[in-house]
């Protein structure tokens, strides 16, 4: 599904060049539930942005569903994003002057679905996430958890292959975070690849694979079976803190 080969990325900061990703090799299969962890500055958000075609990379190759993602025109990238990827952000990124239903329906606008049809589909998705009564509310009338659920509905409406979530629980309290993670788990069980970036161990522990980044390189990959081990380590870490 996703195949990264020796990906490098650096940012120009004035005269300095900041080398963020220093050769990432990574394969993620269809249906995986992956979390990317790492301290701040380790390049986890950058990696996610490259995966989501929100940003480009300097060196290496990135294949998404068999297509090489490199030097694409903006138009082509937009089309790929629309077809393949759904985004969930830490700060929700809902359009403030559109109500919940319109926000959810927006990806379908760019797919060319007629207004009535897409609003109807948007309502279905809102219902799935238990927000049907909130369809006509504006984002600023909703709680963080509700906003994130609207954002998830928006990510799902275009029936993507991958959901990319950048700190989806970063702005939420623990209970709401777990609700959101449950939703993401359900989505994953429906066969959609879910990749989240997080720095919270308990959130990461809910996924089936953890990729730890350190200084722009993959430090370790913890797979399904080793998760229990990871949880133990996490408890230890907590104790030492």
């Amino acid at each position, binding site marked *: 599904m996703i195949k990264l080969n020796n990906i490098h990325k650096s940012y120009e900061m004035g005269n300095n060049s900041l080398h963020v990703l220093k050769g990432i090799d990574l394969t993620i299969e269809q249906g995986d539930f992956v979390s990317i962890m790492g301290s701040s500055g380790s390049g986890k958000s950058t990696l996610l942005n490259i995966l989501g075609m929100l940003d480009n990379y300097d060196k290496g190759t990135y294949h998404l569903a068999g297509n090489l993602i490199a030097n694409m025109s903006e138009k082509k990238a937009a089309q790929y*994003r629309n077809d393949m990827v*759904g985004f969930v952000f830490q700060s929700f*990124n809902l359009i403030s002057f559109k109500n919940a239903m319109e926000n959810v329906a927006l990806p379908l606008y760019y797919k060319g679905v007629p207004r009535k049809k897409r609003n109807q589909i948007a309502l279905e998705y809102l219902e799935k996430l238990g927000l049907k009564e909130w369809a006509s509310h504006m984002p600023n009338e909703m709680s963080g958890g509700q906003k994130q659920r609207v954002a998830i509905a928006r990510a799902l409406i275009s029936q993507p292959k991958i959901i990319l979530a950048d700190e989806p629980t970063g702005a939420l309290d623990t209970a709401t975070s777990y609700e959101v993670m449950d939703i993401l788990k359900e989505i994953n069980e429906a066969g959609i690849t879910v990749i989240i970036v997080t720095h919270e161990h308990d959130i990461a522990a809910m996924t089936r694979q953890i990729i730890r980044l350190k200084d722009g390189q993959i430090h370790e990959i913890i797979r399904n079976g080793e998760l229990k081990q990871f949880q133990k380590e996490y408890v230890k870490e907590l104790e030492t803190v």
Partner: protein
Amino acid sequence: MFDIDIWQEILATIKKNKMRTFLTGFSVAWGIFMLMILLGSGNGLSNGVAANFMNDAVNAMWIWNGETTIAYEGMKTGRPIRFQNQDQEIVSKVSGVGVSSGRYFMGNTRYSYGKESGEYTTITCQPALKDVENLILNEGRFVNQIDIIQNRKVVVIGTDIKTALFKDSTALGEYVNINMVPFKVVGICSEPGSTRNRNAYMPLSTAQMIFNGSNKIHNLALTINASTLEESQAIEEQIRTALGKQHKFDPKDEGAIGLYNKLENYIQTMKIFQAIKIFIWIIGVGTLIAGIVGVSNIMLIVVKERTKEIGIRKAIGASPSSVVGLILLESILITTIAGYIGLVLGTGLMEMVNYFMVQSAGPATDQSETIFLNPTVDINIAIYSTLLLIVAGAVAGYIPAKRAASIKPIVALRDE
């Protein structure tokens, strides 16, 4: 890619951002509104003054006799100059002179018809006077060449004389007694821009014969064909020289003959109006530029304000062109509607001013002196300036929209 969905999306955006929409629209509407008022007032002023000049032919010239003030060929000053019939021929031969007419004043003359009578001014003339003074013939005809040749006893009376003597009955073909001599009424006329039409016109030759004028004339009225001040002054010079030769006075002698050159006056006044018009245009263009800058500013802010929204839209699959289209169409829609509103309000106000002026002037509108006439703007200018604003708004929106649409969505999303 025209489809109803784009417009729904735009209308939804406009509806949710009323203040922004209002500000953009207001600066456009105000620019056009002010431009319309400025240009309308300028046009009104210049139309009004031009109309006043049109009361006589703009290229009219009047020459009257005087006394010499410069000694010439051994003759002392103070010698009166007297015009005779041949002077008209001399003047008419000067190149650049159009039509000309000699005039002989009779002083007050008594007109009577039946029991009615009154004293009116009689102007004796040749057919050309009608063109010099732009006389309006309400009925019948003016003095013609045959009248002159045959010394016919015919008269063209002003409307006031007709009303006074004939009341409602027909005057044409009737005979009026002028200083006890019967004259046939052949025409009824009025003067443009005058509320008093108490002049009567009779053939010069007839008057000279009947009222003992021999071959004397008192002044000359003529038109000249000149388009510039210099040309008209050259003609003036030639006329002075020709008459000076005939009557033996120095052509530079301003006192020997009096001369009023209406064209000179007209050209000078029109020059002033040209200057005023240029001034108004400068202010108008300034207003327009202020409007354009206003629109540009607001569009820059709009794009800045919407950077994050653009990032979101791009993240969920908007192509750069659809983002640019969204912003541009919104700006064009707002400026078009606002420009149209400004256009309608501006021209509407000027039309209203025009309407009330016509109303207050009453039925005498075309007879009275006015300095403000038809203060309206050429509709093409109005439309072009609106289009200019729309294009300016589009360009002003396009550049930042294009930039915003081409930045990476991740950068746009980071923008707070």
